[in-house]
């Protein structure tokens, strides 16, 4: 007999999850504060992210100075303000897209897991299809279908229509893993005594799903959602870097890296700053997710809150 070495089943140490949750939560916290109070913060110690604040006589990007703590970008706009406002876009995309994915995935996963049979088989093949689909291709297909988000039916009402396309791409890609997870949990929970008992007592299908099965699947869902937000932020940056996501002049970090790559050797702050921001926020979400995964693992008897 070989010992079980899967990380999920390894007995967790006490300090690791706590440390990664603390670290992750503080990193995420910093960015959340930036995102929530972006206009206040930039009014207080920086500039408007769209204003060309570099002196009109000097070729931007200008290096970090007292007035522009992280320097200015290729058009002379304050890097720090753009980073702070960029956090807004990144988190907005990360969280909203994850909510779309969670709602869609949970709904489809619940139906599949609860009903089983043909419905289950059909929904799971759809899930396989999405999981097998190369993400970039899907992204390009959607972008090709919505070439002008500014005049697209629903998207044009969003504050930033071009970001709406990113929601679509991420939402379309993100629901599949959630659906699969929920369905797996349901298959397991459905056979457990409490579910059997509820069913025997005559609980209706919605009641059984919403009040009994779903709470049982909550712990893994939280972990998946946290990791998902980090993944979404990375994908948003990637799409924007390729020029198919957020459009200039939006201070999306991906856009900022694209604009800064030309100065990589001579004026590295222009693309290093947004690059670091992406690294830190994604690291934060991953640490948080990993920590939660360990802490909420059933073997440790952890609780959600």
């Amino acid at each position: 007999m070989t010992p079980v070495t899967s990380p999920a089943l390894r007995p967790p140490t006490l300090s690791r999850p706590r440390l990664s949750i603390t670290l992750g939560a503080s990193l995420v916290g910093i960015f959340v504060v930036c995102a929530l109070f972006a206009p206040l913060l930039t009014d207080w110690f920086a500039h408007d992210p769209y204003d060309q604040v570099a002196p009109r006589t000097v070729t931007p990007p200008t290096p970090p100075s007292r007035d522009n703590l992280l320097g200015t970008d290729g058009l002379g706009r304050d890097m720090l303000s753009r980073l702070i406002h960029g956090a807004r876009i990144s988190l907005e995309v990360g969280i909203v897209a994850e909510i779309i994915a969670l709602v869609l995935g949970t709904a489809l996963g619940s139906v599949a897991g609860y009903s089983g049979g043909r419905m289950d088989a059909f929904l799971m093949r759809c899930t396989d299809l999405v999981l097998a689909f190369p993400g970039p291709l899907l992204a390009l297909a959607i972008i090709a279908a919505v070439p002008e988000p500014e005049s697209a039916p629903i998207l044009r009402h969003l504050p930033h229509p071009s970001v709406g396309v990113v929601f679509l791409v991420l939402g379309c890609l993100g629901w599949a893993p959630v659906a699969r997870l929920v369905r797996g949990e349901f298959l397991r929970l459905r056979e457990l005594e409490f579910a059997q008992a509820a069913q025997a007592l005559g609980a209706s299908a919605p009641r059984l799903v919403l009040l009994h099965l779903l709470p049982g699947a909550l712990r893994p869902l939280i972990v998946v959602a946290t990791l998902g937000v980090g993944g979404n932020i990375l994908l948003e940056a990637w799409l924007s870097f390729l020029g198919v996501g957020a459009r200039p002049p939006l201070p999306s970090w991906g856009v900022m890296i694209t604009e800064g790559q030309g100065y990589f050797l001579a004026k590295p702050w222009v693309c290093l700053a947004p690059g670091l921001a992406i690294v830190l926020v994604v690291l934060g979400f991953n640490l948080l997710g990993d920590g939660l995964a360990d802490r909420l693992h059933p073997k440790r008897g952890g609780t959600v809150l």
Partner: protein
Amino acid sequence: MKRLAVLALLATVILAGLACGRSQTPAARAEQVFRFRLHEDPPTLDPALANDQFSEAIVLNVHRGLVELDPGTLEVRPAVAESWTISPDGRTYTFRLREGAVFHNGRTVTAADVVYSFERILRKETNSPRRFLLEPIEGAKEFTEGTSASIAGISAPDERTVVLRLPKPFAPFLSQLTMANAAIVPRETYQDPAKGYLRAPVGCGPFRFSRWEQGNFIELLAFDRYYGGRPAIDRVVVRMIESATSALQEYLAGGLDSLDETPDPGDTAMMAKVGGEIQKYPFIGTGYIGFNMAVAPFKGNAALRQAFNYAVDKEYLWNVLMPGGNQPASGIIPPGILGHDSALPGYPHDEAKARSLLAKAGFPAGKGLPPIALWVNTGEDNRKIAEQIQSDLKKVGINITVREVDWAAYIAGVSGTRDKPGQAQMFRFGWYLDYPDADAILRPLLHSSNWGPAGNFGRYKNSEVDTLIDRALDTPDAQARADLYRKVERIAVMDDPPWIFLAYYQSRTLYKPYVKGVVLSPLGEFRLPLDRLRIERGAT
């Protein structure tokens, strides 16, 4: 066989001795070599087919036509024709060929060669992309279509006289004859069904073709019997180097004597090394942001287009944001071209004027404007230009979005089809003049006959402008023509602007300090004849 070789050697030695004896300094002169760079192999060395700068870079040195352009003043000057007369009605051109013009194969250039060369360009089988240059000649179209065996408007009354007749006066005709395509070629070489001339061209220019190692280099040698006198440069090596970085390294290492790409001004280390060798000079091209005038909001709203023009700060764009490249433009016709108007006010940056014009256009502070997308083709610089314009427009209340698209989709989206306007409401574009004449920019871009994909992408239609452009063609007098073009600009720039006038292009070329006789030509570094160059390497 061996004896023959010895004899040949002996002959060479004697000849060399004679040559030395003839030269003024007794010491053997060091061979003068000039090496410049092309990005890649020229698509063709056949003058009739040359349709790009790289091909022209070779053709213009191997070949000569009846007339040529002075690279500095852009005036037409004699080449194979030593003189010419134009009849008072502007329809008959009589060229007198010079006596000493000789092809590289040793044969004298005659009037029959001119007739042959022109027929060759117009012949359908030749498939010349520049046939239009000779189409103003009477009977040219009939000859191309095969309904006539000869061109009615070309005749050679004697060995040294060529007469060209046009059905109606066409002012840029002489300019068009200076193009590389109108070169005179020897029939015996160019009749070759195996098309050997494609790999070994023969002309009557200052340099004769020596060899071509595909993807590597082309070598030209000075032609001793060139009618203009043997060039000072003995050997020209044209090196094909695709990457700008490698080319710059090669230039630094001394493997190139000139280079058409200069380092980024922000690269201070590189600029310290070669900055002093950069030559900046106007190039006959204009950059602009076109409006789509077939659809709202730009259709029929000149005030709105004027407002956009005043809102954009071209001085900042070219002098501070992206320095070293272009010159802020005030109009359409670039400097150096007959008709360029240095007194044209254009649209200096003025936000107050922009705001009041915006209100006059019916969109006070930008209210009521539909979503507007500015299209640019993919590229760092293009994106930067677009974002700067976006930022400038925002200051007066105009919100536009920027769309970056790859070239094929871009052209389709910008030009549309003949009947359907393109999707782009605004687009970035640039135009290099095919030949140095205002007609070569005004007609393709603004005349309503070129509406749509033919060049007038923005679908500009101003009957006054059309009439003036047409009238200028029938005006042989240079001053009168220039006045007509100035009138065109007063209307098409000041009253009814089709574009945001952005830039007059500039060339930036590196020349080693020992290269002398360089003409900083508005035609660009590639269309520069090399027969006036010389190498002076100081005391060594």
